[in-house]
């Protein structure tokens, strides 16, 4: 067989193209100026300390990072992690059938569905969250519906619990799960699924052994896009969670705005960022073939 190496398409490098690498420059400049430079400023601040009445006292110290090693903060991190993970899992569970369904529709309808999914998010976040309050509260829509259907005898107390926070997070970030999933699934060659079926796979096995692994890039992208903002969320926990628990997002917001300890807030942010990046990198390393973004 004479075919020994098959160049994969993205390896193919057309030298005539190289010249248009400059197209990257404006974006690089923009992000350099308006993202990386500002980030450096905050990084510097994270090593400073808070002035007596807020503001920044310019003394180099690691105190902010060391302060974080405190069971209290670790607990906040842990709880946020659990909640954000749950939100991610629920988004995945909800979003997958939807994305799969969309991917198998005629092109025209795919568009309609995408827009349909985005529209709710053109309304205001706060107003949407208030609407959820109305739905979830003791005498709210959900309880009334469940009661009248006879599914429950006493109203479920869900508002102002972590359950409500979870619902809010899932609601808020569902599209960020659906869109990448849809993109990955639309690319999936369906004959591979048929091949599995032909090879005795049941519906469950087809999903678990073929569809899911092949949609992995989408799953990873979607999970990151849901998980990260979920960790940083602070309005949803306050409003739907009744302000009874703190998530990392609340903590950061609290430090920045209420306590006005910007150095500490920045330190928390960087630790959070580092943890997320690290886990993302690890995750991507594990699933090498999913390493495209």
């Amino acid at each position, binding site marked *: 067989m004479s075919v020994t190496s098959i160049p994969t*398409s*993205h*390896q193919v490098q057309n030298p*005539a*193209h190289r*010249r*248009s*690498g400059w*197209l*990257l420059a*404006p*974006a*690089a400049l*923009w*992000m350099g100026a*308006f*993202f990386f*430079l*500002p*980030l450096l*400023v905050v990084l510097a601040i994270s090593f400073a300390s808070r002035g007596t009445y807020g503001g920044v006292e310019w003394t180099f110290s690691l105190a902010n990072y060391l302060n974080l090693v405190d069971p209290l903060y670790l607990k906040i991190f842990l709880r946020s992690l659990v909640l954000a993970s749950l939100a991610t899992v629920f988004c995945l569970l*909800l979003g997958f*059938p*939807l994305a799969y*369904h*969309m991917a*198998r529709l005629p092109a*025209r309808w795919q568009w309609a569905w*995408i827009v349909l*999914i985005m*529209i*709710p998010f*053109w*309304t*205001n976040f706060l*107003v949407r969250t208030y*609407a959820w309050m*109305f*739905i979830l509260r003791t005498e709210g*829509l959900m309880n009334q519906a469940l009661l009248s259907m006879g599914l429950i005898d006493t109203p479920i107390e869900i508002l102002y619990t972590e359950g409500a926070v979870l619902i809010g997070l899932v*609601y808020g970030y569902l599209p960020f799960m659906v*869109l990448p999933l849809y*993109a990955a699934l639309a*690319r999936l060659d369906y004959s591979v699924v048929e091949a599995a079926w032909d090879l005795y796979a049941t*519906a469950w096995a087809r999903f678990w052994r073929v569809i899911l692994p092949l949609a992995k890039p989408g799953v990873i992208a979607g999970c990151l896009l849901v998980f*990260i*903002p979920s960790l*940083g969320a602070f*309005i949803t926990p306050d409003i739907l969670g009744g302000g009874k628990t703190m998530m*990392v997002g609340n903590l950061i*917001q609290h430090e*920045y705005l209420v306590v006005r300890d910007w150095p500490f*807030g*920045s330190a928390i*942010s*960087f630790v*959070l*960022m580092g943890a997320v*990046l690290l886990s993302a990198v690890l995750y991507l390393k594990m699933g090498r073939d999913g390493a495209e*973004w």
Partner: protein
Amino acid sequence: MRKVQVMSDRRTWLLSASLANLVFLYLPIAVLMVFSFNDSRLSARWEGFTLQWYRALATDDTLMAAVHNSLLVAGISTVIATLLGVGAAVGLERIPPWGRRLVEGAVVLPLVVPEIMMGVALMLFFVLAQVPLSLTTVTIGHAALNLPVVAVIVRARLRKLDPKLEEAARDLGATAWQAFRRVTLPLLWPAILGAVLLSLTLSLDDFIVTFFTAGPGSTTLPLKVYSMVKTGVSPVINALSAVLVLISMVLIALSLALQRKAD
């Protein structure tokens, strides 16, 4: 028929799961729409039907100014993010692999930064650079927020494009720019449209970065709404949301109908 049964068992299952998703997504929207007709300033109970919030909406100049600012910021930042993001996606394809990996990493980073830190960072940066906070700085911030999103989406599509198409154009006498303009760009449209949609959505609803980068006279709709919390968010916002949703629905229906005609 049998066929219909077997095939549609799965189809109906998927369809109902998808519809359940839609219900989930639209339930709060329906609630807020209902409350836009509620004769009470506090959306606590149904007090009767009224159109007063729509009337108020029509005459509320500050709210309209906020909407105007929001649309302006979303529009311009999306244009910037799209232009630069598409450029980045295209350029990325054309640099050596080691550089590509570096840039890919750099593009993911903004997606990982807590938004509030991004806001604070931008605010400090502008102040250091002596740039007065204004709608311009908000727009810059939003563009920085959305640029990676656009780049990621467009790049994914670009990687699926056959590089031979652009070569074919070059072979037929097109300059590099013409080839891009006449072949690659039209083929990227779906992805670009998707990116624009997402970028607009993110920008329209952004509070945190906007809050930190906004200056005098640059109140956007989310800023306006969040500042209402002390005295209660007015149902006028519900009315506004309802109008927005309805307009978008009509637009989709129209475009679907137009496409059907074109087929």
